[in-house]
């Protein structure tokens, strides 16, 4: 693994373009666009205020920079650097901004979630959508970019509106049988919409594209319910992670649970491989190092190298006792992600924060457990192959694939440590196929 030199970043804003050619990063109020291969600066844009959010358009031609404090959105073009566009929400304020799938409309969510303004870059038309819901995941676009589903709340009831993205026509508007809708998500095939309720009530509703209720699923009552939801890329499975530490897999034929995955703190099955991160003190690191050593020499605060060891079953993982009285306790399945080929599901149980569980979906059983030395902050799958990247806030990045796992030291200065990551599409060039990984450090 090769690492580039470190370049400055602020606010964890670093995004690869959808076509994998460019890398956009922010430094204070400047937007820097680099070439992925050479990392040379291609463009440099200056915005009016500190940037809080950047987003590439789907065709990689435009980047939007949102400045929430000023209520401004600036859009830059890659083809025509002199082109500029500025959207001012004024007194309405701005809390969120995103692109539409065609890359020609910008959806701004005003303060207090009063409305969503749809600005068009092609025409001077502006559209408003009233009563958007302020929830975890209120807007979702289908993969092909045709339809947008929006969660709304009127008169203490939840609704879902389906818009046609080409002309913003309201296609369907239906109410949902939820107490307090927490999130909506389209299936990758664009025909089914998953709607889930607040954590006070375990409820998953599945709606067809034309608004018919296909199925409702409820695993249990009273205890805290759903924490995270993920569709498999093939649209065959819906994984629902809940506060009881289980992931329930629903199948697309009957919309009933086919299995549930438990996350116990002790692993006893000998078929499961458990990788434990172990520190290697530098002095003892003589002889062959199993993994590529860091390119740059370690700084004064030498972060120790680490490697993975295979722990023999039974393995007891480190658990965290959650505080009983507070809201949003650190228990349950906080993060879920399917691999791009739908073969694997990676989960994190907040109760056992240092570990990542990887499940084999073909056999519907636990495959591998990775235990890190510090709590896992985020993980992401490679968009094209079953390769998982994990970061824990240390100075290392961890990669797992069915062939094995590796811990890589990210060259950085002292206290900087990776907090998040973004993965680019694999770029097919004449000679090489390689996946790029951007590791973001927080200062």
């Amino acid at each position, binding site marked *: 693994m090769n690492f580039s030199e470190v370049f400055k970043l602020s606010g964890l804003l670093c995004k690869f373009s959808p076509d994998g050619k460019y890398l956009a990063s922010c430094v204070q109020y400047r937007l820097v666009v680099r070439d992925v291969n050479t990392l040379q600066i291609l463009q440099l844009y200056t915005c009016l205020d500190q940037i809080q959010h950047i987003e590439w358009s789907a065709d990689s031609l435009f980047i939007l920079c949102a400045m929430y404090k000023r209520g401004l959105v600036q859009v830059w073009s890659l083809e025509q650097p002199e*082109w500029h566009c*500025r*959207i001012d929400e004024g*007194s309405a304020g701005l809390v969120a901004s995103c692109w539409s799938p065609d*890359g020609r409309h910008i959806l701004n969510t005003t303060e207090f979630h009063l409305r969503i303004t749809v600005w068009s870059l*092609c025409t001077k038309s502006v559209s408003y959508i009233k009563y958007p819901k302020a929830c975890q995941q209120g807007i979702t676009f289908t993969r092909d970019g045709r339809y947008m589903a929006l969660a709304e709340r009127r*008169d203490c009831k939840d609704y879902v509106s389906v818009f046609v993205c080409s*002309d913003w*026509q309201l296609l369907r508007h239906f109410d949902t049988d939820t107490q307090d809708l927490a999130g909506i998500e389209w299936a990758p095939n*664009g025909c089914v919409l998953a709607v889930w309720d607040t954590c006070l009530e375990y409820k998953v509703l599945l709606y067809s594209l034309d608004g018919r209720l296909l199925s409702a699923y409820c695993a249990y009552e009273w205890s805290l319910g759903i924490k995270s939801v993920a569709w498999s890329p093939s649209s065959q499975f819906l994984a629902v992670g809940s506060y009881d530490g289980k992931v329930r897999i629903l199948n697309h034929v009957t919309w009933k649970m086919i299995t549930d995955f438990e996350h116990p703190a002790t692993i006893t099955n000998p078929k499961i491989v458990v990788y434990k991160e172990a520190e290697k003190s530098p002095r003892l690191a003589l002889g062959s190092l199993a993994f590529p050593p860091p390119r740059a020499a370690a700084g004064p605060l030498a972060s120790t190298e680490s490697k993975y060891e295979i722990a023999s079953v039974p393995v007891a993982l480190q658990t965290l006792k959650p505080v009983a009285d507070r809201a949003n306790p650190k228990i349950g399945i906080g993060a879920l992600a399917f691999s791009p080929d739908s073969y694997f599901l990676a989960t994190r149980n907040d109760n056992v924060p240092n570990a990542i569980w990887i499940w084999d979906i073909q056999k519907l059983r636990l495959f591998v457990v990775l235990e890190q030395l510090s709590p896992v902050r985020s993980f992401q799958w490679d968009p094209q192959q079953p390769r998982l990247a994990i970061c824990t806030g240390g100075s290392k990045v961890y990669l797992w694939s069915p062939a094995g796992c590796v811990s890589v030291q990210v060259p950085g200065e002292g206290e900087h440590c990776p907090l998040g990551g973004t993965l680019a599409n694999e770029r097919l060039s004449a000679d090489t196929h390689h996946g790029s990984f951007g590791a973001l450090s927080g200062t």
Partner: protein
Amino acid sequence: MGDWMTVTDPGLSSESKNISQNTSETKMSPSSLYSQQVLCSSIPLSKNVHSFFSAFCTEQNIEQSISYLDQELTTFGFPSLYEESKGKETKRELNIVAVLNCMNELLILQRKNLLAQENVETQNLKLGSDMDHLQSCYAKLKVQKLQNIIASRATQYNHDMKRKEREYNKLKERLHQLVMNKKDKKIAMEVLNYVGRADGKRGSWRTGKTEARNEDEMYKILLNDYEYRQKQILMENAELKKVLQQMKKEMISLLSPQKQKPRERADDGTGTVLSDVEEDAGELNRESMWDLSCETVREQLTNSIRKQWRILKSHVEKLDNQVSKVHLEGFNDEDVISRQDHEQETEKLELEIQQCKEMIKTQQQLLQQQLATACDDDTTSLLRDCYLLEEKERLKEEWSLFKEQKKNFEKERRSFTEAAIRLGLERKAFEEERASWLKQQFLNMTTFDHQNSENVKLFSAFSGSSDRDNLTVHSRPQQKKPHSVSNGSPACTSKLTKSLPASPSTSDFCQTRSCVSEHSSVNVLNISPEESKPNQVGRECTNPKWSVASRPGAREGCYSGCSVTCTNSHVEKDDLP
């Protein structure tokens, strides 16, 4: 009644035993009566109690015990044990009737008390179970109560939330109005130039048509998805059906050989199976034609599979039972061999196999040893040829003999050729002589008549022979015909002289002719067994007839003595013209 315990007299313990034995008798002797004591109702009667019984009353203190008992009983309300006294001074007599009555009463009382005790105990148990039940109910009720509380609180919470949300919405509306009314010029979009659409087309107005189009598209997408999924499911169904059909066939085939054996336990199952097999065969034919997903076909398939599976299951169970039965009971069934015996047999067979294998191995080893033992080259070569040694020796001898003979033949041949040459020369000389003689004779013909006949003979002989020579020369190839012999050696020599340059076959002819019995014992090595009859050949040759050995192989063996026979050949005068 506790004081009577202290009255016991330890010295009377032996007597008490006797008395206790007496108590078992039904005789109502006074002593036995006294020894029976009724203790507390709760203590059951046991052997040890008898000691207590005797402890109260003994031979010595009868009067005292009677009086005491009387006191006690009267306090309990029983009639007195004594007879009515006539006077104060006289000793009161024991009223036996009263005593018996009292005893009876006491027994009745005892029984009543026992019953009461039982009742109390059962009641106690009932109450205990009731208590448990109630406690559990109470716990459940508690939980329900708590749940109700939660539910009520939840509703309350929801209601409050809704109220707050309504308020909030009102605020939002108000704010929205304010914001909209202000028409803040700041809310604007400033853009250098408009960007073209992503798909390059022009934007279209939103009309009813577009709405309808959108609806259509949406339904199309949905339908496509459903069709795709249905295809997948149909494929899966077809595969599963195939698998089921296969399973059914296999199950039928598995079960059918068993049916042919007459089982002792012919249940209904076997009878039905036979009919099922026939049915299923028919079904199979039908089903292969209908490869549709009809309800009836599906049901048929599942039903038949279930039937077969049931039969298979029952069969397996039967087998299991058999096995277990035999295992437990031993040789009950003649068909079935007990497992132990079976195992023993198999062990024996295995041993045998092992032994045989070992034997084969050792034999192989020995054989190899024999063949592969390291020895000298000479011995090996000798050994190699040991079987043929005798024959080889004989062969060698014969070969040497043959070589000798060959040499001899060569010698003789040379001598023959020399002799032939000589003869030729001699013949020539003789001819000249003859010619001169003839001349002389001719000149002297008139003088000598008596010589004519001889000369004529000779002349004719010679002329004839010369003619015959010509004849024989031509007819030589026909070797099989017996030729008339020429007279004497001169004919022979003439033949020879003619024959020698002519053809080798003539010399062969002569030679074969003259092969002599002198060497009749010659072993002809090169002749095949059917050919080698040298004696015959020899005999043929010595015959006056000139039959020729037709076998070419015989020539070689007949070289010897050619010239001798030639000169010695008899002359047949018969053929002379």
